[in-house]
């Protein structure tokens, strides 16, 4: 597919591909090379990408429920990353509070180290129950050369608890993705294995790469526990600092988000020999397979089959009912990374086909998993920008767009049904029972009467002095 909006932006062609006959990659530049990914964004292309700080503070570090979340930088980074992502836990300190060293011009000129140290001490004094202080570095404090690592060490000695310093300056890397890596690496280095607990950990697991969006863990943790397994730590949804310290004791790591968290599984494998398996905890087939693979590791296969059969029996009538209503719908999934490929199978189980698949920061392994699963003729696009998304929505006219809140209102303005895959409309969506929520939300989105109103009764914008101003018809 040639994008009209990319006529002046030929460099975007290598980020766009069709799955051709025999599964061959037909790239936008006419070659069979694989889709380009994880490279710098074209400046000014209206990307949806965020920064390394966002990936570290927002995704990996932010969900840790009993750490003081302190941003070392100006106010904005802390304000915007505060309380918008529902990475819930059984307590809400991490959602309710954000801390920031609030760098002003004087600090930028004379350095912010003193203010950082004082901030850590003050924050700890205000919230003495917190188990650690997570300090996130930003663009400005990195550029002026603050030695945050050293300050963190000093502070640790003063307050007597871990001060974890993340070098996640926004300008590093090409997307949020590097922030995930830094988050993993820093937590591993500074916390994991710092306590050696006694006890039997032979039947224990960590769930790696799940952030408990809208309480996702409630849909699958009890299933692993029903196998007779103990969950030590979640990385990082509903996790405490103490859990992170002992997560190296687990017998097995279950890796869910394989973009943002495989790093720590790899590091644990290398240092502690902990094996890991990759799983998808969305959809019937994938969730069942996750339980089977986990059970196989511990020799609990029979128990797994019982659990799976019981769960499927619970939801199958609802899923069947929804499938009848959703059958044949064509979907455009655009997620940060792995969710795009995690959901292709789930949507098929609901009778739907992914016709366009995109990610914000996926790497080659993500796109390989997408290509393996999508049907021939499907469009794959890396780091799509606003005009491209608009063109997909208007020219390919998917029945459903699954994306995030930034894109929601664009879809609505174009009359395309939308489900929020980032933070869910009314989740959780994971596990067996969560899939019913997902199906229900898709059903609501597709069958709301509002679309008939829009498509049958909407009128063109009243012709006023603005209507022709720079107007360029969007082809539909």
């Amino acid at each position, binding site marked *: 597919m040639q994008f009209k909006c990319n006529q*002046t932006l030929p460099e975007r062609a290598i980020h766009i591909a069709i799955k051709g006959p025999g599964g061959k990659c037909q790239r936008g530049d006419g070659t069979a090379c694989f889709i380009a990914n994880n490279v710098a*964004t074209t*400046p*000014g*292309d*209206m*990307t*949806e*990408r965020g*920064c390394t*700080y*966002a990936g570290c503070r927002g995704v990996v570090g932010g969900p840790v429920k009993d750490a003081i979340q302190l941003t070392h930088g*100006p*106010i*904005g*980074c802390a*304000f*915007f990353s*505060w309380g*918008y992502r529902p990475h819930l836990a059984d307590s809400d300190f991490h959602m*309710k*509070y*954000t*801390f*920031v*060293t*609030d760098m*002003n011009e004087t600090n*930028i000129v004379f350095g912010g180290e003193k*203010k950082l140290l*004082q901030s*850590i001490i003050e*924050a700890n004094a*205000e919230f003495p129950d917190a188990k650690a202080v997570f300090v996130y570095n930003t*663009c400005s404090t990195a*550029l002026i050369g603050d030695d945050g690592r050293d300050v963190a060490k000093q502070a640790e000695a003063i307050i007597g608890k871990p001060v974890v310093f993340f070098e996640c300056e*926004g*300008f*590093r890397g*090409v997307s949020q993705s590097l922030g995930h890596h830094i988050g993993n690496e820093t937590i591993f280095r500074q916390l994991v294995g710092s306590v050696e607990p006694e006890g039997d950990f032979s039947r224990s697991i960590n769930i790696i790469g799940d952030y408990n969006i809208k309480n996702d863990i409630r849909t699958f943790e009890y299933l692993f526990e029903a196998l007779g397994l103990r969950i030590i730590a979640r990385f990082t949804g509903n996790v405490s600092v103490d859990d992170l310290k002992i997560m190296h004791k687990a017998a097995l790591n279950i890796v869910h988000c394989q973009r943002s968290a495989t790093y720590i599984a790899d590091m644990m494998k290398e240092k502690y020999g902990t094996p890991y398996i990759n799983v998808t905890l969305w959809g019937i087939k994938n969730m069942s397979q996750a339980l089977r693979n986990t059970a196989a590791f511990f020799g609990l296969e029979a128990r797994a089959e019982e659990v799976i059969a019981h769960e499927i029996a619970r939801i199958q009538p609802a899923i069947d009912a929804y499938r009848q209503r959703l059958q044949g719908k064509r979907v455009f999934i655009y997620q940060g990374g792995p969710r795009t490929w995690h959901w292709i199978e789930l949507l098929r189980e609901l009778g739907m086909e992914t016709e366009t698949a995109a990610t914000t920061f996926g790497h080659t392994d993500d796109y390989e998993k997408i290509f393996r699963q999508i049907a021939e003729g499907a469009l794959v696009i890396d780091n799509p920008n*606003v*005009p491209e998304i608009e063109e997909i929505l208007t020219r390919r006219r998917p029945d459903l767009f699954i994306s995030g*809140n*930034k894109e*929601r*209102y*664009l879809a609505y*303005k174009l009359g395309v049904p939308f489900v929020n895959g980032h933070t869910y409309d009314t989740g959780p969506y994971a596990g067996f029972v969560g899939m019913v929520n997902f199906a229900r939300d898709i059903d609501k989105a597709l069958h709301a009467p509002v679309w008939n109103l*829009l498509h049958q009764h*909407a*009128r*063109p*914008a009243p012709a006023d002095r*603005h209507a022709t*101003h*720079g*107007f*360029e*018809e*969007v082809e539909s």
Partner: protein
Amino acid sequence: MTSCLTMQERAVAINPTRSCAPIGAMLANYGIHGAITINHGSQGCATYPRHQMARHFREPVEVATTSLTEKTTVYGGKQNLIAALKNIWERFHPTMIMVCSTCLSETIGDDIPAIIDEFLEKHPEVTIPILSVKTPSYIGNHTTGFDNFLKEIALNLPDRRKKKGETNGKINIIPGWVNPGDIRELKHVLREMGLHGLWITDYSETLDGGYYHPRPHFPRGGTTVEELRSSSKSLATIALQRHIGGEAARIYERRYNVPAHVLTMPIGLKNTDAFVNTLVEITDHTIPEALEVERARLLDALVDTHMYTTGLRVALYGDPDLLEGLVGLIAEMGMTPAYILTAADNRPWGERMVELTEELGVESEIILKGDLHELHKRIKQKPVDLLIGHSKGKFIAEAEKIPLVRVGFPVEDRFGYHRRSIVGYNGAIALVDEITNTIFERRATTIVSNTLIETGVEGPTDIPIPLRNGAARHP
């Protein structure tokens, strides 16, 4: 009645009430039809504000970024900015481009105006204005970005070739950081007065748009660049927030001889009167019947509700201009603005607020450089009946079981607040109703028809009703 001024001393900010400069410039630029923002910095500096604005306005919010990376911190961001300008121009053909800076581009020292000049030299086909606005996050806050944007507009866009006495017959209105609903209410006031406003700027429709098929290339609405060019020929400029647009109004006066009127945000009776009287003063138009009726209706609403509101203690937080306007209506409702907290480090404003609250007959603690954690601590020490501010105060409201009336930015946990108005007579009426109903909902759980009126609304704080305040106005 003596108010006092205090300054929060903590180094660490906990739950700030404010965000940073670029979002202010981006918001203001949305009020220009067909204008596009390029944020020169890390991708997060564009994406975070976009997300925040989408949560408040529930509209598509599109801002470009120059996607600076590690390499640019060494070699500078010039190539990225030039590429972004070219790409935005070629793909969108906007009517104007606004480039706002960030911590990153300011700290590495990119000379944005020089880069823009170089771009324009290489691309003579680009004839639209390209504006540079300084918005590093470490100077001021989100209001600073808005204000800097307005100053750049005032300095760069208006036509300097003005014949003596030449006028476009319009009045420049700089509403400041308000909601689309507020701008529509202000427009209503001008329309009723028979006047034409030139809005600097107007995002009443671009950020609260309708559903049209086909979707217009640019959102409908907004002030055009041509209108802004002619703003030097207006009769006067009225800035409705002192810190956002006040300086721009004075630039109009100095550079283009357009008289400046810098007013308090028109919230409540007297503040709205001041706005309307200024319009009268500028134009000799009389106050029309429709506005007189609205004004009388506001007085009626104030008298109908005063038994529920008088004597209640209220905590206000947010931006200086909003607070300055709001405190007028709060006093008119007989309530005490016990805490007035802002993040700004602005002592002159604080001193003026001390005077203002004393004039209004209320006793307040005005807290500068404050954050919501500080406010929470004050409220724990001495409670209030009501919180008024943006959504981030909900954590205090939940913890202390104090109702929150949502005004300001952002309101991200409720729907449609961007459409509402709190300015003008109608805005004040709506806010009086909202505040009173919030109190009803909290105090009176069983409502049988009109008996609510007899239930009474008692404050938990058993402070004496400040009769001096009431007596002063009703001899």
